[in-house]
């Protein structure tokens, strides 16, 4: 039990020489069988709201550039529904989309501490991060495309749709000095256009 406690402590601790030294052991023990992530709101709370926007297209390759209108926000309605019922599964169902968007930027929670340490100039942390981000980004696009497919497959005209365009909306929280302001700034990042996967279960459940 003492061994488990010490390994768990080292695993969830910030990057330090002990963690660097025993990283393979920690990954093979706690990381494999007792995986824990304790980084929520630490060290810095998320100060942006990321949303996934999708638009179903009737062209296979997305050659017709998606216009500014017709985009559907897939994640914010889930968050609003979760506000109404705190003991629901809306946040759990929306979590893969939110995590994928964050993972696209930072490589995911397992790499966040390495990313932060790398930015502070720890070379060994940079090496771990570089190795991890390449692997981490590979399935992200696929996950987002699957979520987009689930959305398009649920439409009444699903048969006509052949691809889905995806965007990430980044909404920044007003700074403390502007906390009285009701307006929030946002910008969109295009994530690409993907062929619709017909085998994905339509997103008709839990629709707020």
């Amino acid at each position, binding site marked *: *039990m003492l061994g*488990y*406690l010490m390994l*768990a*402590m080292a695993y*969830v*601790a*910030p990057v330090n020489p002990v963690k660097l030294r025993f990283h393979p052991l920690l990954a093979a023990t706690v990381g*494999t*069988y*007792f*995986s*824990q*992530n*304790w*980084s*929520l*709101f*630490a*060290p*810095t*709370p*998320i*100060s942006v*709201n990321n*949303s996934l926007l999708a638009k179903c297209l009737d062209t296979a390759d997305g050659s017709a550039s998606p216009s500014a209108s017709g985009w559907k926000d897939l994640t*914010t309605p889930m*968050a*609003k529904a*979760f*506000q109404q019922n*705190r*003991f*629901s*599964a809306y*946040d*759990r*169902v929306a*979590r*893969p989309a939110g*995590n*994928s968007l964050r993972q696209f930027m930072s490589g995911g929670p397992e790499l966040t501490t390495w990313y932060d340490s790398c930015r502070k100039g720890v070379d060994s942390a940079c090496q771990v991060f570089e190795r991890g981000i390449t692997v981490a980004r*590979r*399935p992200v696009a*696929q*996950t987002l495309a*699957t*979520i987009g497919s*689930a959305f398009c497959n649920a439409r009444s005209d699903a048969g006509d749709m052949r691809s889905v365009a995806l965007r990430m909306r980044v*909404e920044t*929280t007003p700074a*403390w000095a502007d*906390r*009285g302001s009701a307006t929030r700034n946002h910008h969109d990042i295009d994530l690409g256009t993907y062929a619709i996967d017909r*085998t*994905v*279960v*339509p997103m008709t*459940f*839990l629709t707020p």
Partner: protein
Amino acid sequence: MSPSRDLANHLDRLFERATASAWRRTGVAIFRVVVGCLLLLRWAPALPGAGYLASLGRIAFAHGGGGWFHAVAIRVCASSVGVAGLSGLIALGGLCLAINMRPRLAAFVVWVALLIVLRGFPDLATPGDHFIVGVLPYLILVGPSGRPVEGRFWVWLHNVAVVGLVAQSAILVFLGAFARAHALSWHNGTALYLIAQHHQSPASLPVQDLTRNSVIATVLTYSVLLGGMWYPIFSALGWRARGVAVGAFCAVQLLLCFLPPLTHLSLLIIGSSSTLLSDSHYDLIRRAAVGLRRHLPGAALPRRASD
């Protein structure tokens, strides 16, 4: 007396204490109910989305991974039946924990199911699930509520698990606060304002307005930070000071429950804090509650009439 004999006597006394009676039974029972209710309420509604979630789980399956456990986990999470089965098992296990029905078996089943989720489809797990999976091994070992723990071995096992539960919770809460301690927003007292602006938090919440107030935002942010960093010390405090410290810590966490991103985590931390108090604390609370009821206007009248 030689040092080795002194040590042996000390260990004898410690063993006697650890096998004499089961510790912190009320606190453990409260924690088990909190964990059970949260598991039930947070996993049962995910059942209708199993097919969609399995579609996402299939991506992890396609990319594969090392180790037999990983291979099994991603295979389970890649099928609708697997995701529905895991959600159902966790919800059912949560129900059993909440109503104290075969709690050790339920804790074991939930632990294995959560490990499969965390390994096969980690995006599905919330921060609360990460906390729960860390403390469930101890809930497998503690004695069930409602009947005495009999036999020296079972009493010893219960007490060892209680010590482990308290230590594990302390590690998690402390390291969470430790990681925050160097961040600017926690230093300058605006962290809770930022959390309240998360899009899961409705704009109309009174607590969100509170976090816009300079004094309240700062005091609340520092209370969360310092409470977390002092959490491991609570166990070492005296009886009275421990009661006050845990009460104040739980009051702050209760306020955080009103912020949706923190609701479940705060409830879990309140639940784990309940294991810091001894059974005599709960006896005092029970006596105080009974005394308070006697002083309530409506409660006292029928008693006098019958006298």
